[in-house]
């Protein structure tokens, strides 16, 4: 089936600065960031492709999942794989951490029917840009030549630079985040009262007055401290920068962690478990 417009979401793996896979970060109403971004793009395009490495499973999405063949070569290789997988004349390409994307913005960008990207203070927003379908072959050539940046591809495609000061772009819908603090700021910007849910299981449940609580979002350290205070927890859950030995925390039921600096997002359910799982 030939299509005119595609949306491509590049899903990196676990982000080292964030400590968690961005695709799975919560973004309100029980949805993950990837679900939210796909929902925003979907009405503006004929199909959405999500490019991901094998090391990342995804929730069910209204999108086609394309495997990033060479994740170690960076975003241009993923972009190439995404473009190669669609027959669309033009594709809007974004990263996962773009919660402020709007359908109107994606629609407006694709209506230009040409390679284009916003430029903000000299920075080309390569992951909030439109690439023509034939860009796959050009990307392949650039990768062979050792030029591995998406910006090289935009330049090779003679892209149109859009002034980010244009009122239509004033909301900077490409804004993303790379650190727990930046993510939590974005969450609080959206809802200053954003909360997460914490559940004490096992020994922690026996030691707490109420095993289910809601507390404001924050780093895991903040969240645990608030919850422990709120329920008079008779157990030490923290040891330096880590969750105390003998315990583990599950974030959203997926990551099992002990690092207190990780972010806990809106409506996210975290469970404090006993680490000994023998049975």
């Amino acid at each position, binding site marked *: 089936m030939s299509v005119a417009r595609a949306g491509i979401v590049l899903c990196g793996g676990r982000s080292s600065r964030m400590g968690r896979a961005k695709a799975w970060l919560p973004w309100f109403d029980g949805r993950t960031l990837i679900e939210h971004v796909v929902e925003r793009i979907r009405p503006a395009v004929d199909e959405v492709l999500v490019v991901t490495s094998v090391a990342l*499973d995804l*929730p*069910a999405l209204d999108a086609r999942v394309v495997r990033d063949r060479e994740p170690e070569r960076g975003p241009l290789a993923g972009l190439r794989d995404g473009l190669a997988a669609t027959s669309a004349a033009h594709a809007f390409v974004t990263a996962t951490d773009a919660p402020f994307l709007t359908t109107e913005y994606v629609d407006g960008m694709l209506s230009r029917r040409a390679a284009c990207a916003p430029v903000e203070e000299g920075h080309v927003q390569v992951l909030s840009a439109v690439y023509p379908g034939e860009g796959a072959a050009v990307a392949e050539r650039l990768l062979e030549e050792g030029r591995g940046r998406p910006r090289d591809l935009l330049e090779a495609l003679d892209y149109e630079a859009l002034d980010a000061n244009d009122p239509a772009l004033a909301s900077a819908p490409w804004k993303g985040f790379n650190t727990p603090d930046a993510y939590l700021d974005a969450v609080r910007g959206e809802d200053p009262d954003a909360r997460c849910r914490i559940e004490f*299981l096992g*020994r922690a449940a026996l030691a707490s007055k109420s095993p289910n609580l809601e507390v404001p979002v924050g780093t895991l350290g903040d969240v645990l401290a608030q919850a422990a205070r709120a329920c008079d927890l008779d157990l030490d859950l923290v040891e330096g920068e880590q969750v105390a030995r003998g315990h583990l925390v599950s974030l959203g039921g997926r990551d*099992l962690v002990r690092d207190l600096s990780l972010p806990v997002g809106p409506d996210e359910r975290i469970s404090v478990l006993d680490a000994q799982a023998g*049975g």
Partner: protein
Amino acid sequence: MSGIHGRYLRIDLSRGTSEHVAIPESVSRRLLGGVGLGTWLLLRESTPGFDPLSAEAPLVFAFSPLVGTGLTTSAKFAVVAKSPLTGFVCDALASSHFAIAGKRMGIDAIVVKGACETPSEWVRGVLRPTASWGRSAAETTSVLGGEGRVAAIGVAGEQLVRFATISADGRHAGRGGLGAVMGAKRLKAIVVAGELETPIADRTALEARADRLRARAAGPETAKYRELGTVGNLLAFDRVGALPTRNFQTSHFEGAEKLAAERWRGERAHRRAACAHCTIGCEQRYASRPGGAADVRIEYESQFALGPLVGVADPDAVLASSARCDALGLDTISAGATLAFSMECGERGWLEGAPAFGDDLLPWLDRIATRDGLGDRLAEGSLRLAREIGDEAVGIAPQVKGLEMPGYEPRALQTMALGLAVSSRGADHNRSSAYEADFSEEVDRMHGDARSVAAAVAAEERAAILDSLVLCKFVRGAMGDLFEESAAILSDLTGEAWSADGVETVAKRIVDLRRLGNEREGWQPADDSLPKRFLEEPIPGGPAVGARLPAERLRDLIRSYYLERGYDESGRISSDRRTAFESELGLDLTGPASGGADDA
């Protein structure tokens, strides 16, 4: 060498005789006791390709060097036989005074061969007709308990149910159907008693070591087991999408909350108990219904298999099913998993008259144990039933090598997935314990990789040592470096110098010996795998939604595991190494199926 008696008792039921047979010290040094010694005795006392339910099949009760030392959690014995469920080497451990009393007979093991003409019991050297046939193991024990310590089978063992257990002091050598091996011999019970103390080389040093271990075993590393027991797993596993539900169709159970021990605490009477000579005491007993006395022993594996796996969310029903399995002598995991499998087959229209998810299990457990109606086919286990139904059914039968899977969803716990696939006993959580890594930050539990392989290998070796010393898995957290501490214990006990490296070598040897035993009995590379469902379907919902274990990933993990263990690409041990094992251990390991490929 102190710590052992250097001989075993061979009982010939066909002739009604028994004799002492020497165990070379070199064998005890190389394999210790428990599962190590037991495997050696099984292979030595049998010919390749024997029928596990035949008279010639050996049934081994192996004690261990630590039995009788007073070390916490050491009063355990291994039952070793060829499993009627898998056709491979099987060992099952149980804790009880049976181990202590057996070893006091001045022996390191009992090997039972032959078969009785009529139902009998062996009581301290005397083989006599039994009046307990048709009774539960607990009833049998109360009849015979005055004469010594008892190991007995229930009705399921008598009826050769392929997942029947052997019970002692209310604990069970549960997995692999070893109760059917005993039943095939028409042996209801073995009763042991004796006066001989275990010789200890340096009693003062060992006692001091035992005191220190006991103190550590009262610390935070075992707190979960003391405070909640293994039943504390259920809600946690549910919350991380690892709780097998409705025959492994999904990994999150909507009724988990009702089955959670954390919630039971306020609702029903509860008390803790402990195995013989254990200071941890992880055993949890709950009232079978609110208002009753705390009389039902429940473990996570029973709770998951008789609850979420069969779609049952009523705690009274789960506790009642667990108690019924114990009374009948059924392995709770295999019983629950075989029923769950039949339920899915029923839903798909493949099995007429099958129970439905959520049904009352009690009549079904009775039918299985007595081989009544469809119960007769269920008593054969999930793989045999699946083969009768067809290939598609085999793909959803929850088993590896014929042994039903424990309560760990392999797609969401991929180190465990590898452990389950390669384990010599079949789908097994105790000989591998690879889940330990999945419940840590050591690996990415949803994407098995090289770290998972290293963790699975290490976990298997730790288990091999604990199961041959024998010590309980749950004391492990209280031991520093397991191999070093084991070496120190063995040095004090035996009077010989043991090193951590030496202990690790024993562990590797035991893992290899079991594989060689399986090869002798016809193991093929395809036996190391997981059912198709896990390799083709992602988890459809719940916290681990989307988790997949593609076939090629599992194959890569298995191949790396073989490499790490020094096996060839297909998982076989080289003929040179096999020959070395044969001469070191005085065994013939060449079986009908293992003589070909690797010799070429």
